[in-house]
């Protein structure tokens, strides 16, 4: 099962009671969001609205289809904009 880390103690952790690492049965970013929402109501929405996913060092802003593999490094980080 892929392991996901909520990298910042930003709003996300208030839904998880401080837990930052999860094993999640999910093969895509979309499944991950749905799974997190099921486990911690409100967190899925938080991730959807304000977080991006970094898989093996590459940041995906909005790609539901981004693939999650066991052994991949998966972090949820704040979304990034720019000037």
């Amino acid at each position, binding site marked *: 099962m892929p392991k996901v880390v909520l990298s910042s103690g930003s709003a996300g952790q*208030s839904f998880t009671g401080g837990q930052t690492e999860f094993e999640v049965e999910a093969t895509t970013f979309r499944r991950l969001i749905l799974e997190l929402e099921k486990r911690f109501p409100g967190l899925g929405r938080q991730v959807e609205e304000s977080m991006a996913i970094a898989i093996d060092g590459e940041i995906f802003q909005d790609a539901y289809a981004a693939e999650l593999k066991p052994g991949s490094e998966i972090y949820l980080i704040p979304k990034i904009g*720019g000037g």
Partner: protein
Amino acid sequence: MNYIDSSLKVVGTRPIRPDGVDKVTGRAVFAADTRASGMLWGKIKRSPHAHARIVSIDTSKAEALPGVRAVVTSADFPDIASEEAFVGEGPMNFRDLSLNVMARGKALYEGHAIAAVAASTQAIADAALELIDVQYEVLPHVIEVEAAMAPDAPILHDDLFTAGVTPAPTKPSNIAKVVTFKKGDADAGFAEADVIVEGRYTTQPVHQAYIEPHACLVTYAPDGQITIHASSQGHFMIRAYTAKLLGLEMSNIRVNPAEIGGGFGGKTLIYLEPVAVALSRKSGRSVKMQMTREEVFRGSGPTSGATIEVKLGAKKDGTIVAAKQVLKFQAGAFPGSPIGPGCMCGFAMYDLPNVDVVGYDVVSNRPKVAAYRAPGAPITSFGVESAMDELAIKLGMDPLTLREKNAATNGTKTHYGPTHVNIGFTAVLAAVKSHPHWKSPLKEGHGRGLATGFWFNIGGESTATVHVNEDGSIVAATGSPDIGGSRASIGMMVAEVLGVSAQHVRTVVADTASIGYTFVTGGSRVTFATGMAATQAAEKVVDELKRRAAATWDIPVEAVEWKDGMAYPAGSNAGAFEPLDLASLALKQARTGGPINAEVSVNAQGAGAGFGAHICDVSVDKETGHVKIERYTAIQDVGKAIHPSYVEGQIQGGAAQGIGWALNEEYIYNAKGQMENAGFLDYRVPVASDVPMIEAVLVEVPNPRHPFGARGVGEVPIVPPMAAIANAIRSATGLRMPDLPMSPPKVRAAIDAAG
């Protein structure tokens, strides 16, 4: 397809940009240059108070003034619910945006829009503003970030509770959010350190100070169809926000992208368009609005000012074993400072085992901040790179060596989690080491500073179309406003794929009704993401051209190859045909299948982070405290420079903005919370005589996720300058300047204090 190792004919050259002649002859049409028949002028009445309850607004006298056709207040806008949006830059809440565009109930900063009028002339509109009677109950205000965090500070929003802390607070606060990042064990790391440096730094909010004030022309037709001409970093963003703030359907709004006179992030959100639509709807006439320079300063967003605490611990050999940072960012009147990137970017250049970062997003009675080039990164890096300099001094180590020793490389795990991949930071440091500027002896009385910087860069949604015209010439259209030469770079990538010259391709920016959705021009994403879409569209056109040639020759498409703008039979087995050029294929398009074109939409990922390092020599006038930039070199990994001149231009421009941020620019407030320097005379951006030539050095470590290897380049160059200059001043005078701007009075005071 990937062209990184191909020999390139167009990409990497320096053709004249397609929109160039219009811009040197005065023909280019910016938003303020547009006109409509029967057009009215719209103007905004703004709060003179930093914080006040709006008791009443009486518009009757203004409405009675001859020539006035409409007056609007927040009553003319729907009171929309809190909802997160991400159509502009950075986190944004539609309700906050609506309240920022037109105050409802409270004015939260001096310059906050309270009402607006549309009148037949500018003079009548100005007179009408004076006749609007607003009764205020003035409230205590708070300007500075740490004052706003104090327990007894005046509260801006009764419904704002700090997010990111447990247990959830029960009292409202000006602290919108707390962000933390931890890696390893910072305290244990500091316990191991031989040398520790600590510092507290402050930065002032600075405005993007694009020379073109915000402007738009809006027509609301009786059937509800709306046409907007606007200067922005995203006409789709204008459409989305205008629709949302007024409760309209997007298909009823068509936004035409005018030329944009600079943005730097400041035009990734809206101020005028929903107001102009409301005025046009009420008056039945077209309405033009244009901010004055003063309004730009008072009413539109600068970037955050901040306090930055940094602590670094290192072994004697320079290995950094622990790092700590506390960041307090001003958000302005509504939450949403770039605190997240601020927390992530400061230490992203280094391989650090133990890191602890805490960031606060804090509201106060200032204009709502807007994105400004690498939002958050220049602020956090001013602190970190100043502290790195102090650490080098304390260790007795060369500042470049210290950075080389701790530099992030591929495989370095960042303190915010992800592992760096495909980065070129060590190549940038190597370019510093070998650069003549770095190796040159320091002149008498001069000081030299070095600082580095990081920015993520982003991808995102873009659409591009490529059309073959009936004569075989090419049009490429995208949804990305061209802020600094992107029409040139996109046309060049299309030309490269098609095998034609850059002059053969006309690149345009299409309006919201004429091309698929495209996210804003920002985050250094256009050449990367829109370039990717355009490249793919051009490839599809090549595939189609090969099919047309195959149909003409009556051979299988696999037997056709495309080379130098022409279809050739692939080898002698395919048949002995004369090659077909674009013009010949276009001439027969009706016979071979109809118009030849392609549209591609992408959501580009893997933008490829950018790193830079700046070297700066200064001299300091001990009498006046004036700092003169004597020599400046900016080195950056750009992946692949599509049009090197415009890449250099981004780097030189970003560096000059950083020089202004370092030495002059700031918001000065009086005791009433009113800005005292809202004009170019007193808010002094760098002029030509303030800066030397800025040498831009392009390091090219290709980004494998882009067909030509490009990385975003526009943002990194504003990250290092503040610390590079502070470090140069330290080198010249022995004085550490922790507070921006390092303006003559401050430098002089520091010199005097040191005796």
